[in-house]
């Protein structure tokens, strides 16, 4: 009983509530205003865990994903693509994911050549795109940009990521319902053909969107399409068995050199500059490869439910207020110095634990409100004690 009396205090509870009211007002009246846009745009698209990716990850460490091979075909014409697919097919891959949209028909001769090349590959997943959502039916329109002539008998999957136009790619949707039925994300469909049990595990999580666990862009063997067309090289590659029984992702993957066209390039949390302006750091195909790796290796990111985060935030703020209030009452002369020092230590410690949990256990939680409350609590205690409490007699009796 004595313990509860020690940790429960009405003043502390009121100050905690006031702090969260301040935060709420702050968010409503300031963060949504346009004059803060530069600040917003710079920091809104930022998460603390981005620092973990960009600064705490061992960037020199490469974890080779043996199951996946990337083939860069640049921006190919259909005749060239047909030749490359012929060569890939001859290497007996397990599944081929073609991240090139084959929209409409072009030259009948090359189209039929390409179709013949596609048909030679036993399991082919073709890229398409979700472009419209029917809000009344709550279904997507059928995926576009894959001509029926080519998709005949092949699997289609959508290449969309869940993001605003120029934002950081963090999320993907494993599957979506369309008017033509259920479709999987490109990487998910490719893995489904390669290791269906892994995708079953992903789907069992029943998350409408999943956070991508990025492992890097250098973890995959990468082959240039041009080289595949060189006979001697191709023979050596076949002899080596590099593509045999593998998951082959075909698309545009540049070499990340300056001056390359910014085609199918995105920002990811791996970007060395985690805030503000920088260059897109990953090609779409590399992101698909990262998603496929994550599913293959069961490396999912776990997020605490919102209510748990809120609860931790409130508790965190409450105990800080309890401590600061005690200091205010009992060691009033040094209140300012001690409180600021504690806040600083707590800030670094929280940052450390958030980073630690994400890095080692892939557990992500958002303590932004709790941290903001901790920082504001000093001022709210001052306002409460020197203004509010003096005006309201009832509070003086607590």
């Amino acid at each position, binding site marked *: 009983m004595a313990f509860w009396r020690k940790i429960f205090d009405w003043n502390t509870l009121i100050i905690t509530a006031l702090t969260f009211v301040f935060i709420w007002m702050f968010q409503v009246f300031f963060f949504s205003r346009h004059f803060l846009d530069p600040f917003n745009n710079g920091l809104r698209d930022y998460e603390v865990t981005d620092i973990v990716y960009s600064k705490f990850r061992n960037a*020199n460490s490469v974890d080779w994903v043996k199951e996946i091979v990337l083939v860069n075909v640049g921006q190919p014409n259909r005749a060239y693509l047909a030749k490359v697919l012929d060569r890939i097919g001859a290497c007996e891959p397990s599944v081929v994911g073609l991240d090139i949209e084959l929209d409409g028909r072009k030259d009948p001769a090359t189209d039929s050549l390409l179709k013949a090349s596609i048909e030679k590959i036993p399991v082919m997943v073709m890229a398409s795109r979700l472009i419209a959502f029917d809000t009344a039916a709550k279904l997507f329109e059928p995926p576009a940009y894959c001509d029926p002539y080519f998709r005949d008998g092949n699997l289609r999957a959508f290449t969309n990521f869940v993001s605003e136009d120029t934002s950081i790619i963090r999320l993907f949707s494993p599957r979506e319902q369309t008017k033509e039925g259920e479709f999987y994300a490109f990487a998910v469909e490719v893995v489904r053909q390669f290791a269906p049990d892994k995708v079953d595990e992903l789907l069992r999580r029943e998350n409408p969107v999943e956070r991508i666990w990025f492992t890097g862009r250098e973890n995959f063997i990468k082959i240039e399409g041009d080289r595949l067309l060189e006979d001697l090289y191709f023979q050596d590659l076949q002899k080596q068995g590099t593509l045999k029984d593998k998951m082959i992702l075909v698309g545009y993957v540049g070499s990340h050199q300056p001056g390359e066209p910014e085609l199918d390039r995105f920002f990811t949390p791996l970007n060395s500059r985690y805030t503000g302006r920088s260059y897109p750091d990953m090609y779409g195909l590399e992101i698909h490869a990262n998603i496929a790796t994550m599913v293959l290796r069961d490396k999912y990111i776990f997020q605490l439910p919102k209510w748990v985060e809120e609860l931790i935030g409130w508790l965190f703020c409450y105990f800080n207020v309890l401590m600061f209030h005690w200091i205010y009452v009992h060691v009033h002369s040094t209140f300012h110095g001690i409180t600021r020092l504690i806040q600083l230590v707590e800030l670094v410690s929280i940052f450390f634990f958030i980073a630690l949990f994400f890095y080692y256990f892939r557990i992500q939680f958002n303590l932004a409100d709790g941290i903001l409350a901790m920082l504001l609590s000093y001022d709210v205690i001052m306002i409460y004690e020197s203004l509010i409490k003096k005006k309201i007699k009832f509070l003086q009796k607590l």
Partner: protein
Amino acid sequence: MKSRPLFQAAILLLLASTLSAQGTQSFIVMSVIGTVHCVEYPGADQSRLVQGQALGMEAVVSLTTGASARLLYQDQSITLKEAGNYPLKSLVANLPSNSSSFLKRFFNYVYEGIVNTSGSKQIEKYHELYLTQSSGGIKGFAGADYGISLTQPVMGNIIPFPARFEWFSAGDSVLYDFQIVDFQTDGLIFKALLRDTMIVVNLEQLAVEPGRKYYWVVQQKRLGEMAIGFPLADDPYMRSPKVEFVISNQQLSDLTKDLEASEAYKNGVEIDRFLMMAQTMEEANYPSWANRILLEALGKEPANPLIRKVYAAFLIRQGLWEAAQHYL
């Protein structure tokens, strides 16, 4: 009594894991651009490098100009971009430690955040430090493309005497990786890691053949930098141009006999003779010999404006603009 078999099993397990770990001490080829060859062990035939190939420590990878390869060793990625031969054993020896822990990276980050308070005020205060970091305009346009400029035109036809290779300093505490490379095969002929900005090499002692083309290049290195001697990226701002030269077996007297027989040469004063000889050498594509003659003339009359201008113009024609400025 029961603990003994358990202990033995643990030892066996440890031994097996150690052996299997040793078995993975190989390089995996992750990507190849252009033509890259390898010799898997001494005495083996040269073969084409392909992705997915595993290479042992004894292998040597050879890159031609414009080619690149990315290899994976244990969990470290190594990109080879510059033409040359790369013995994998040496690459391993030069690999930096990859063992920094999460804790260390975290505290480094926090520490740097405290120490490097790089804000706009900091930039304003120490603008000299930041001024060279970015610039408008097109890099290298109508100016020097290379981080190291040469002072001596050791190029064109070269007579295999001791040759003096010299370049401008690229800053304090910089080391220079000097190399002479076979132009046709990119095979390394001579290599030295220097503190000085000059080296005299007796070409007669090297395994060079008359009539064959070679090039020399100087690469900047800093103390403690990864892979000394094995540049992993070709950055022109970190090196000199690749200066091509051919070993000549022609006698100098053959080149100069017509000149020496001419009336103008016979009747000219000493300085005129020097200039005429230098011109003849330059026209025969012996710029290093012409350079030697012009320097000799300058040594005799250092303040002579004519010789200084002729020498400056000569250096400019060889592409050594920075060196020429000293004589203008």
